[in-house]
């Protein structure tokens, strides 16, 4: 019930807001939360508990507990006591069958108790096994709180980086004073804002002074030189029968209802308190006209019995040492516990102080400081009992998970005798409050029951985040790095189907891949190969560096010539491949696979440093566009666009030469990955489109990756990473000719080892006897057992067969060996073919 305007109230009665709750229109004022407006409108039950479906009402009014969670605008588990009112919000109860006031599932509270002791599910529903899915379905349906909406809300979340000298977390008195004292660039954050503080919740303190702050729709990632934690203390509940009844509140609940929102919480109240907070709440209650019938100050009064009794889950009376006092509000205050989680997570230790009955942080990390209550600056509270007796109502240690005193005792009796085991077995402290209102209580109870002390029991590990945080906020804006070739937009304009290869987008094909294959074989095609890694190696030691990196020779490579190279790891595994062109005595131009450029560059730099060579390694991948012009008409087309002599004598197979094509200076590499006469042209990325357009205008048919894969397979060219894996070596991959006799190269010992003990598998080409295409990944089988696998397979019109590459046992790797390949459950014959399927002698390439 709302009372007359109060001095200091936080609501603006001139600004009403109306929202919908279970079909009814509810009005609140600016400054209200949905929770306070509902309370003012007479609602007392806000939720049903996790396991027993007991009615629960406002408890802390600080967003710490699970009691006021409802679904707002389709978003589950919104804490109403801190959710500002807004027009048009649609608020619904959750986790109830029926309504909040009549929840059919509350049957578990009445009869469920004896059937559902802690951990009951471990001991039941074991046999017969086939019924478990049914039981499980039921369990799943009753568990969980709110429901996920059908669609996301598509809120905009942003992330912002900030650097400060000092970050003060917590805007209470201690925090504000610390901020005022601090020097340099100082920032204060507080969950509730106000007093010049940034409104937001620090989620954790991570390495490097990183403090992420949840500010609703912006995530601030603070980097602070120094962090001051002033998160205060958390009001602690008392443990007694009926301590979860609707009407039982913490002092802050009363404080906010009365002072901030000018609401009279009830008619008649009892206060049981271990500190001044309860007494202040008594004052607040009186100020709004609630009668305070009885105040128990645990510092001066020793009680043994304390119990709350209620009707239909709502408080009706409190029993104190045999005396029953009728009331509808009970303020309980078990003193405050330093909110040390951020500190513990930052690396601080926490230590139990028996005199004050609290855990305090010690041994703070160097850049972190604690002040005020968070640091343990809390005096004047009595240490309450681990629990109070009285009546047979349920006595909750953990309200989030509905864990009672009896559950804890039972867990102990069963042997779960450490805090970590007891926590896991009872699930106490594992609910939405994250231990704020139950951690200390669990420890106290274990200490009492095991007849040790709290220090011996110890705390559980502090686990971030400090406060639940939305996935959307953590995720931030959605963007994903995408690499585009300089010719990207030409492909899009031509209507190519694009696909991912690593972070690159590349054309799969422009139309019919088979037609594109045909164009290359019969006339002229052009493919964008700008994604190839490109590295310049220059310097007096460049030749020597490459000589030692590669298993084959490069020191003897003539200027203007190209050689294929395969890089192996120091374990002799195939790592990457590409071509190496010598452009000058000290100058090499190396290409790598599309995904390999960075790792190969690092690899070169690393060995260059290890061996102390004088060679510059420059990754020029992005600087250059590259295309492969291939087909029988390639020379003619190129000749028409350049003044240079591109005849077969002047630009032989495996020659490299700088020429100008269509006004664009290019490095022309005459190589033949796709099996026909071809030229790779590399030029400045910014001139790529110009070159491409000129080639297309000359009749070159753009072809995509898919046709290229068919073409290269016809030549049995290996794709590193597809046909090889992390274990493949040069000998097993059928490339012994790469390995040259020389004093040393990276991975040499491994090659020698493999030579000595023989290979265990071998990569071979194969043709299918029939026309069926085995999927890549199909297994080579012998007697129903897998003995190999297909890594590449395509239908080749040119060869007139289904062709592919496969790993087989070395004993089955000879030319002409018959293989069985399993396709869709049946075995199909194939034949090993060691020579390339197309133009085995390479005449076309040299033509």
């Amino acid at each position: 019930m709302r009372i007359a305007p109060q001095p200091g109230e936080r609501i603006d009665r001139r600004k009403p807001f109306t929202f919908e709750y279970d079909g009814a229109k509810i009005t609140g004022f600016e400054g209200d939360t949905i929770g306070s407006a509902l309370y003012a409108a007479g609602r007392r039950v806000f939720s049903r508990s996790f396991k027993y479906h007991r009615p629960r009402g406002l408890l802390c009014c600080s967003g710490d507990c699970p009691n006021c969670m409802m679904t707002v605008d389709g978003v589950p588990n919104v804490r109403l006591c801190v959710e500002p009112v807004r027009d048009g919000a649609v608020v619904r109860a959750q986790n109830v069958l029926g309504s909040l006031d009549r929840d059919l599932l509350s049957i578990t509270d009445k009869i469920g108790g004896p059937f559902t002791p802690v951990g009951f599910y471990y001991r039941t529903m074991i046999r017969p096994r086939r019924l478990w899915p049914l039981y499980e379905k039921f369990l799943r349906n009753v568990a969980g709180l709110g429901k996920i909406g059908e669609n996301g809300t598509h809120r905009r979340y942003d992330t912002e980086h900030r650097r400060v000298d000092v970050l003060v977390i917590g805007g209470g008195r201690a925090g504000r004073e610390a901020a005022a004292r601090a020097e340099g660039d100082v920032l204060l954050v507080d969950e509730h804002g106000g007093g010049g503080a940034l409104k937001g919740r620090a989620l954790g303190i991570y390495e490097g002074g990183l403090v992420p702050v949840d500010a609703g729709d912006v995530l601030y990632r603070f980097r602070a030189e120094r962090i001051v934690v002033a998160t205060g203390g958390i009001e602690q509940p008392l443990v007694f029968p009926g301590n979860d009844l609707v009407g039982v509140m913490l002092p802050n609940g009363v404080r906010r209802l009365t002072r901030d929102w000018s609401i009279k919480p009830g008619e008649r109240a009892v206060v049981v308190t271990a500190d001044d907070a309860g007494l202040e709440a008594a004052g607040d209650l009186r100020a709004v006209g609630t009668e305070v019938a009885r105040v128990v100050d645990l510092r001066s009064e020793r009680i043994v019995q304390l119990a709350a009794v209620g009707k239909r889950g709502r408080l009706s009376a409190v029993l104190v040492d045999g005396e029953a006092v009728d009331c509808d509000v009970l303020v309980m205050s078990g003193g405050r516990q330093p909110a040390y989680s951020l500190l513990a997570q930052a690396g601080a230790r926490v230590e139990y102080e028996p005199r004050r009955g609290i855990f305090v942080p010690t041994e703070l990390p160097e850049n972190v400081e604690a002040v005020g209550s968070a640091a343990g600056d809390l005096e004047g509270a009595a240490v309450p009992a681990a629990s109070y007796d009285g009546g047979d109502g349920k006595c909750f240690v953990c309200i989030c998970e509905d864990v009672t005193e009896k559950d804890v005792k039972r867990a102990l009796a069963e042997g779960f005798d450490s805090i970590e085991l007891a926590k896991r077995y009872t699930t106490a402290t594992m609910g939405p409050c994250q231990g704020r209102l139950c951690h200390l209580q669990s420890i106290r109870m274990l200490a009492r029951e095991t007849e040790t002390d709290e220090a011996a029991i110890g705390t559980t590990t502090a686990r971030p985040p400090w406060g639940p945080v939305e996935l959307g906020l953590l995720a931030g804006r959605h963007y994903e790095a995408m690499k585009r070739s300089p010719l990207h937009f030409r492909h899009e304009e031509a209507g190519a189907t694009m696909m991912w290869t690593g972070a690159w987008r590349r054309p799969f094909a422009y139309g019919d891949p088979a037609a594109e294959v045909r164009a290359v074989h019969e006339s002229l095609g052009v493919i964008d190969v700008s994604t190839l890694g490109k590295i310049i190696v220059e310097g007096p030691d460049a030749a020597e560096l490459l000589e030692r990196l590669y298993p084959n020779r490069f020191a003897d490579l003539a200027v203007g010539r190209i050689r294929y190279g395969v890089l192996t790891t120091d374990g002799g595994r195939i790592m990457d491949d590409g071509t190496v062109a010598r452009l000058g005595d000290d100058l090499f131009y190396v290409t790598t696979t599309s995904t390999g450029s960075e790792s190969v560059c690092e690899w070169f730099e690393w060995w260059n440093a290890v061996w102390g060579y004088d060679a510059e390694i420059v990754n020029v991948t992005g600087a250059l566009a590259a295309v492969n012009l291939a087909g029988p008409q390639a020379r003619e087309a190129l000749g028409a666009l350049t003044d240079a002599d591109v005849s077969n004598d002047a630009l032989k197979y495996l020659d490299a030469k700088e020429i100008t094509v269509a006004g664009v200076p290019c490095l022309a590499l005459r190589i033949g990955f796709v099996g026909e006469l071809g030229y790779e042209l590399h030029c400045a990325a910014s001139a790529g489109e110009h070159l491409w357009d000129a080639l297309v205008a000359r009749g070159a048919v753009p072809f995509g990756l898919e046709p290229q894969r068919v073409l290269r397979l016809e030549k049995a060219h290996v794709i590193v990473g597809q046909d090889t894996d992390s274990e493949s070596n040069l000998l097993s991959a059928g490339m012994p000719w790469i390995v040259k006799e020389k004093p040393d190269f990276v991975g040499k010992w491994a090659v020698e080892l493999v030579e000595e003990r023989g290979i265990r598998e071998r990569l071979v080409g194969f043709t299918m006897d029939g026309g069926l295409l085995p999927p890549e990944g199909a297994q080579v089988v012998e007697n129903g057992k897998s003995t190999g696998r297909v890594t590449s397979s395509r239908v080749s019109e040119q060869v007139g067969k289904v062709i592919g590459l496969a790993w087989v046992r070395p004993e089955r790797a000879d030319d002409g060996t018959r293989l069985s390949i399993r396709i869709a459950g049946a075995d199909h014959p194939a034949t090993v073919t060691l020579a390339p399927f197309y133009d085995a002698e390479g005449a076309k390439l040299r033509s």
Partner: protein
Amino acid sequence: MKDIFRVSRMWRPRGELKKRYDVVVIGGGSHGLATAYYLAKNHGVKDVAVLEKSYIGSGASGRNTTIIRSNYRTPEGAAFYSRSVKLYEQLSADLDFNLMFSQHGHLTLAHSERAMVTMQERAEVNQLLGIDSRVVYPEEIARLCPQINLGPRQTWPIQGALYHAPGGIIRHDAVVWGLARGADRAGVEIHPYTEVTGIERTSGRATAVETNRGRVEADVVVSAVAGWSTLVCGLAGVRLPITTHILQAFVTEPVKPFLDVIIVSAQMHVYVSQTDRGEFLIGAEIEPYTTYKSIGTFPFLEYSARHTLELFPQLERLRVLRTWTGLCDLSPDYSPILGRTEVENFHVSAGWGTYGFKAAPIVGTTLAKLVATGETPDLIAPFALERFHTDELVSELAAAAVSH
């Protein structure tokens, strides 16, 4: 009202350490406890002590995301894990303890052509071994998991998946406790808060361990300490080709059932399941640097959230409740290291990376057999430590790297 369930102790309170046991198992995780349990149950070897430096299940066994499956890439791996899944299916009944093994199915998403090939390969290998595993395409994914975002607005559209119907999740603590109870009842002694600090060898043979509670002799010593393997094996002078990394995971607030199957995406570095409690359980791949310190990182939360939302945009407002980290002992080929070492009678279970929980029963049965009979079971022969000397690796890279 009285409880209808009798209070019965799970295990005896910790007793005094004896001077000598037939077998000492180091590590009170799922592997150590399973080894002890099967030693007693299958071989009648009962003079066994499990030494655990903290509480039982305090290591990766109590921190993992409990995915159990057998759709591995290599025939050796698939056969091994497949046997383990079968054992898990019976384990609740064997232990008379409900481990809550829910075989709701497991989908490994492929977002690229290359990934589809890997899925195909795994499906083929699996099918040859009789494992229920096949490639499915978006229409069927939509049926198996109607909630998933298959829309074109995805950065990495889902092209297909490997569907493994027997894949599921289990309650990890229940596995630890059930095995501990079973072992305890069979006579095994479990010693929590007992840390092994030294391993004695006499002429190339392990003979005793040193602990914070004194020295204990043993005929056979088994190291089942996963993330601590390099340290503990180091005590015996055994060097392992293992690097130790952290792996992180988190849960959200509980919500009503939304997701039945387990979704794994290597491309997104993320996997998502919903527990019986209603929490979403989300994990990622290991952190690339090596460490023994379990400290979580914030970027992990950020990218996991981002990738989860790419798959399930509806979860935007779902809140993360708790994150944690565990240690992972990663071997070069992503396969375990199991069985004998060069120190006689010192056996090891290590190299479990991010995938060892599913192996607990098979590790337990095979190691127990090795200890009791001195013979290495065929199923684990490919995983011998020796393979790194003979260069006979069992590469699971494509199956295990990000999936669990």
